[in-house]
């Protein structure tokens, strides 16, 4: 089977690939196909995602760096040019916005009490109905994204089977434990889908944020007027007024998976102001993900490093950390947040991501004390272990002791705690948005959608709050599940064969 590794066969990686290039080349060929399909979007994302303009303004404002401004603008124009290359998954290749053709009804029947109609459409992909065209695009996007994931996984397997010097490393065990951890895998898949939603948000929505949400009165939409039987054109803003969800009855309601009178399909229904909820949520996932992960990242890094340092050095360092975290926790968090947001509102930092960066920084720097408290105990416990003494006795540096001998035992608590905090951050942002202090309207954000639908929960328009609420629940659960899976995977003593432990951990959390 696999030959024993010996010192002789550990040549550098490049040599190993040169000796047996076939699997690597095949793997790279797949990468070529995947990139070719999306090359325009890749550059587009590069040009759009970071706030280049703000960065450039600040960067080139500095005396020395101003010299590089021409270089920057050349790069920017090249990037923009490349971003215009058509891509498979763009809205233009599989359009879903169009209108029904007058007299184009091809099929209508009553099946089990539902009226099923099939019209010929114009402007949509292959003349299919808007809903089907949209569904095809969404499916293709997710297939593509999962194909990319599969490519990464395949890459790891190719490396492991063909090019790695050792036929076994500890990481293999971790991955193999993860492969049998169904709960963790569930979390992984859901989070992957959430990330994909954020990445492909502009292509996923049935309509575009700018046209439908931000400047509805600058764009027109065509539709088939039922009364006159003619195709007419109207401003999107006007169409939105006719597709509002305000509790049903005469106030109107457009629920999950319905068309409105303007030949527009709403997979998740509409908001009270008639804007498309799915488009809103898809775009909002970017903001929520950005704020959530950045805030979590900031507080985790602070909490974790502080826990390591205070547990290792104890004494005055620990006492200082206790006092610092107590003082921070003693301040009412919401009031401090509101105050800070108000003070910083006019500054440049509040413009980035419509206030998202500011919120992430504030929530992150205010979230660590609770997290640090939660992992302080386990850190103090692990530093008592004799292997820490052993490491000291042969002169290991404190930093390495913390990383190799303490951190692996605390990171499990961190994952679970962090995944539970994420939901809280999303809710905090929505609360602030509700007060007009968070994300500035009309920028989409999940919390804002919940707030917008609050008063309609008991009516036919329940979808406005319930759908984003459920999404938050699912995402938070998934992060929790993934955290659980990773914790079990990095612990060589965990027995993933029996589901008992995972179930207990899941139930306990």
């Amino acid at each position: 089977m696999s030959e024993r590794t010996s010192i002789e066969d550990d040549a550098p990686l490049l040599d190993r690939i040169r000796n047996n290039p076939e699997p690597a080349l095949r793997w790279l060929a797949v990468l070529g196909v995947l990139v070719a399909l999306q090359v325009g979007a890749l550059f587009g994302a590069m040009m759009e995602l970071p706030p280049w303009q703000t960065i450039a303004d600040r960067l080139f404002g500095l005396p020395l760096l101003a010299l590089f401004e021409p270089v920057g603008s050349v790069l920017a124009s090249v990037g923009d040019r490349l971003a215009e290359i058509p891509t498979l998954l763009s809205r233009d290749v599989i359009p879903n916005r169009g209108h029904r053709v007058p007299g184009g009804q091809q099929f209508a029947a009553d099946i089990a009490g539902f009226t099923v109609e099939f019209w010929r459409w114009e402007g949509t992909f292959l003349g299919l109905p808007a809903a089907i065209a949209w569904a095809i695009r969404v499916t293709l996007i997710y297939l593509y994204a999962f194909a990319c994931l599969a490519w990464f996984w395949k890459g790891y397997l190719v490396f492991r089977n063909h090019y790695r010097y050792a036929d076994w490393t500890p990481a293999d065990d971790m991955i193999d434990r993860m492969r049998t951890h169904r709960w963790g895998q569930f979390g992984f898949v859901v989070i992957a889908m959430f990330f994909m939603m954020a990445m492909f948000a502009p292509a996923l929505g049935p309509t575009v944020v700018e046209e439908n949400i931000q400047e509805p009165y600058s764009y027109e939409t065509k539709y088939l007027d039922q009364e006159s039987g003619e195709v007419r054109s109207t401003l999107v803003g006007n169409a939105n007024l006719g597709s509002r969800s305000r509790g049903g009855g005469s106030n109107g309601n457009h629920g999950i998976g319905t068309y409105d009178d303007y030949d527009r399909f709403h997979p998740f229904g509409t908001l009270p102001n008639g804007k498309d909820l799915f488009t809103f949520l898809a775009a909002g996932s970017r903001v929520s993900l950005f704020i959530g992960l950045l805030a979590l990242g900031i507080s985790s890094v602070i909490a974790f490093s502080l826990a390591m340092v205070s547990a290792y050095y104890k004494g005055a360092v620990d006492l200082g950390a206790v006092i610092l975290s107590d003082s921070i926790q003693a301040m009412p968090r919401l009031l401090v947040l509101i105050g800070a947001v108000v003070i910083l509102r006019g500054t440049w930092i509040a413009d980035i991501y419509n206030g998202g960066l500011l919120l992430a920084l504030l929530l992150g720097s205010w979230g660590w004390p609770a997290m640090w408290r939660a992992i302080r105990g386990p850190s103090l416990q692990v530093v008592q272990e004799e292997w820490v003494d052993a490491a000291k006795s042969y002169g290991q540096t404190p930093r390495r002791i913390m990383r190799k001998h303490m951190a692996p035992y605390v990171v499990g608590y961190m994952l679970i705690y962090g995944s539970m905090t994420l939901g809280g951050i999303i809710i905090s942002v929505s609360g602030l948005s509700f007060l007009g202090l968070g994300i500035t309207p009309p920028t989409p954000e999940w919390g804002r959608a919940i707030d917008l639908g609050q008063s309609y929960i008991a009516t036919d328009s329940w979808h406005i709050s319930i759908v984003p609420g459920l999404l938050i629940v699912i995402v938070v659960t998934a992060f929790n599940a993934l955290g659980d899976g990773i914790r079990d995977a990095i612990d060589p003593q965990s027995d993933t064969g029996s589901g008992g432990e995972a179930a207990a951990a899941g139930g306990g959390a």
Partner: protein
Amino acid sequence: MSKQAYGDQETTVQDSKQDTLVDVNGLKTYYGKEGGLLGGNPVKAVDDVSFTIERGETLGLVGESGCGKTTLGRTLVQLESATAGEVAYAGTDITTLDGKELKQWRRNVQMVFQDPDSSLNNRMTVGEIVREPLEVHNWPTFEVGVQNADASEVTVNGEMARHVAEAKYEDSDIVVTPEAELVHLRESAPIDSSELTINVTESGGGVTVDVTVHKSRNQIRRRRVRELLETVGLQEEHYYRYPHQFSGGQKQRVGIARALSLEPDFVVLDEPVSALDASVQAKILNLLEDLQDKFGLTYLFIAHDLSVVRHICDRVAVMYLGNIMELGETEEMFESPGNPYTHSLLSAIPEPDPTLEKDRITLRGTPPSPRDPPSGCPFSTRCPMKIRPEEFRDIDMEVWTAIEVFREVLRERSRAERTTVERVKEFLAFDTRFASIDEIVEELFGDLDVPPEVQTHVSEAASMVADGDEEAAGEYLNEQFGSECDAEYPEAHEVSESGRESRCHRHKNEYVSPGEYRTEMQQ
């Protein structure tokens, strides 16, 4: 030419016997500070200890739990910092080292811990565990010595090479001469001469040595770890296993392999076999002995199992309450112990023969608190052979014991903190646990035939306690019944021709020595 190079080898070889490696002088390790935040005395875990360890020997360190033997071991490897005194390792006082020097020194001294379950990180593979010390010290770095050249004019190039000023055969990994190039490769160096290319060039009065190693550091380390695993009786394949997949004995072998990875000279073995079951203990002990022979190691063997100590140690130090009570050749000490504490320790060794009549010395009570050790001899509060004042030498043993217990009780009581509630109760003349002195006296002396002169002193002391002055009562009893043992810290007396030393006042000429006293008691 190479013969000439080997010619001076003899001069550099030293006599490995009778060469002091570790010289401990007046070492104190206290926990907590005097008059610190919580007041009170520091815990005197190691209190003024002096001894030496010769190169290549095994020194045993025995004593009951909490006597400070582990703290002493940890101080020797600088896991604890000494409060006072010095530890000279090969002539350098290591208690003053810090930073780079300390890290460099740590290569020489390693520790094997008591519990292999907790001394090995469960999240690391055995290979990573044994490899870690190598990575910490950026091992290997070959020490290159150049003979027949002025050290200041020598340049050594090479990623893994370092120049040493003196080209000694036993210390340097590689010794070269400007003419003969490689003349010596240390036998246990982790490299084969075929894996080395050495170029020596002489130019303008300087000598440049280029050392190229045809292996990466990682390759040499992996090979080293595999060798070490085999050395301690494990298999190469265990490299990728986790500690929890091993038995206790195997885990301890991993711990030993880790301790040996940097080729130390001195290893502190902190009860290395006491967490293992008996059949495995013997194997690990034999392994330790084999390794000592193979690598010329010096051991400090901390244990509380005396039969293990007898098996492995050349010399033994007996520790009690942070002090070394007796120190000397193992076999001799087991045959004829000097100190009363050694007598009682040895009498506690279980005898496999049930028919054998044995007089066990059972010590009463527990050791005193190391926060507040007795003045005088540390063992005086429990010593069965304590020197009595002249006038009480003939009173009954039981009466004497009762007096000693009575004094101990008073000592404990005057030291115990009174809670606020107890103070209030006392003030209101309620019964507290401090008030029942009559009951104690009754219990201790009630059944005994107490001589009148003893009785008066006891009653006097009891009345003082009843008045609430326990300290005065203690002092009074000390005046009446106290002896040299209570007053003076015993000197170390040489008790055998081999230079065994014991701290006991009974070794003085005017008293009956502990051995003789014991025989007298048995009759």
